[in-house]
């Protein structure tokens, strides 16, 4: 799988949607062209999903979702949300056409965001979006077309990264994560996993910002599960605020008890995520401070390897 380590300025400029002006005409105009806004088409494909990751991403506070989709998310960089099944104005055939046109017009230059696992049973008929010649277009077919022509794929949420809930035993739809499907379909487009159930909006925004400014992450910036070390290097247990209870041997034995939640099945020791630092929803709370054990939702084994939820692993 080829991974481009960086995208040169020249490559950006070649497809930046800026007014064509001769660079040799005036030095000031030349500079203006160089500093022209770089636009990044995004195709956000929702497959076997609950849409929780979209709902979570629009919970972003700084930047607000308005900043992200209507303004320059970083100075000189603008995301263009060409396709999103839950937010876009177009519907039916018009929406499918929008995705196809964007993929063709910006071939090799768009960011494909996948939210949800991909059903692979049979010919992928457990999940379809739209029709072509009277036949449903399977999500598998969508992935094949959109994945192959993308610049990079962001697998947002544990379902897209590793299969997640739809892939839980017995996996009736034979759902798989994006990387696994790409391998199956021989697609070499790079994938960055941004897991979580849902994924935290900061993880998504942070990953996008990283790519915009520094290009593709280097292999040592990603862990063995394709996640950025930036967000997923330390376990929940490493930095949990309940470590003082554990040190003092104060263990919660039933729901509502004060104390470390290990006896109630906390999967913190097996879960890498910065939730204890970042907290959730404008940092108002997180699972542990609500008295609930971590369920390991950022991990490849979620949910089966972390089940039963309330029993120690």
């Amino acid at each position: 799988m080829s991974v481009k380590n960086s995208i040169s300025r020249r490559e950006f400029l070649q497809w930046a949607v800026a007014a064509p002006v001769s660079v040799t005409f005036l030095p000031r105009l030349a500079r203006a062209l160089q500093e022209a806004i770089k636009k990044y088409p995004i195709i956000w494909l929702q497959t076997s999903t609950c849409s929780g990751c979209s709902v979570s991403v629009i919970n972003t506070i700084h930047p607000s979702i308005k900043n992200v989709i209507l303004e320059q998310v970083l100075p000189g960089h603008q995301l263009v949300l060409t396709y999103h099944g839950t937010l876009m104005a177009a519907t039916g055939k018009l929406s499918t056409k929008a995705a196809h046109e964007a993929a063709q017009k910006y071939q090799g230059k768009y960011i494909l965001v996948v939210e949800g696992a991909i059903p692979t049973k049979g010919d992928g008929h457990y999940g379809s979006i739209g029709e072509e010649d009277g036949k449903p277009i399977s999500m598998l077919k969508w992935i094949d077309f959109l994945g192959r022509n993308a610049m990079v794929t962001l697998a947002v949420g544990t379902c897209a990264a590793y299969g997640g809930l739809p892939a839980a035993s017995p996996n009736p739809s034979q759902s798989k994560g994006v990387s696994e499907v790409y391998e199956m379909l021989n697609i070499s487009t790079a994938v960055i996993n941004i897991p979580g159930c849902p994924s935290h909006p900061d993880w998504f925004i942070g990953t996008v910002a990283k790519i915009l400014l520094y290009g593709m992450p280097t292999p040592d910036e990603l862990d063995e599960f394709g996640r950025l070390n930036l967000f997923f290097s330390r376990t929940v247990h490493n930095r949990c605020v309940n470590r003082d209870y554990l040190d003092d041997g104060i263990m919660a034995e039933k729901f509502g008890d004060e104390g470390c939640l290990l006896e109630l099945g906390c999967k913190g020791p097996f879960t890498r995520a910065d939730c204890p630092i970042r907290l959730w929803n404008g940092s108002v709370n997180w699972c542990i401070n609500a008295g609930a054990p971590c369920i390991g939702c950022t991990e490849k084994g979620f949910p089966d390897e972390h089940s039963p939820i309330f029993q120690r692993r």
Partner: protein
Amino acid sequence: MDVLKRAFLMNIHPYSKGDEKMETLQQTISIDPMTRIEGHLKIEATVENKKVIEAKSEGTLYRGFEQILIGREPLDAVQITQRFCGVCPTPHAIASAQALDDAFSITPPDNGRIIRNIMQGSNSIQSHVLHFYHLASLDYFHGPEIPPFIPRYEADYRVPKAVQESLTNHYIQAYQIRLKAHELCAIWSGKMPHMASIVPGGVTIRPRIDNITTSLWRLKELTDFIDNVYLPDVIMLAQIYRDYLQIGSGCGNYLAYGQFDLEANPDVTKRKRLLPMGRIVNGILL
């Protein structure tokens, strides 16, 4: 509330489009995918003489949660079923917890019942705001001329330009409001979407006076938006599109399971709720 009274008392006149020539031929309209919903849906309608004579809906995704639940620890159901939907995980979590309460003959204490209601209420606010502004309203007005507001079908837009602008501003503002509703929920649930603190027997979180106080004021901020922006927008659109109130009632059969337990009655069919359970059959409330 004045604004609601006015809505109920307003006269409803059929909207006439003038000299439109109607086809007597049957026309089948298929919308696949239906966007601005959660999930994957195809709608097919056959229209003849301005009437829908046949309509079909098809969910175009199967995940198999029922099969996934079989054989698992019962307590896991609350977490698994929430993943049906990232917009409305709350009712699934609460329904699962209530089913388990029933199965284990547990009566949650008042605090557990009330905190579950707070979580449900705050997420209902989130989902209503999301639905009206971010899912439905783009059928009534168009946003700016950039994606994802284009491309679009040129729908039956009737709002004057000034209203167009205020709706656009409210649409943007509504993004902030709904995330604040999630913050209110997360104070009790741990995070949103997908709540951590709902379990059979009640909730895992112990209420604190600071959480209660901040919740009151967060709710006030949400209520201000609902009273001063959301409701007036709904009523304004209802007046401009008053003919729509005459159409789309479907076959007249509706079912509601009720919401917001007001007491701890172990008999789920007799338990008092703020929104009671009930049926409407052939347009008649039973």
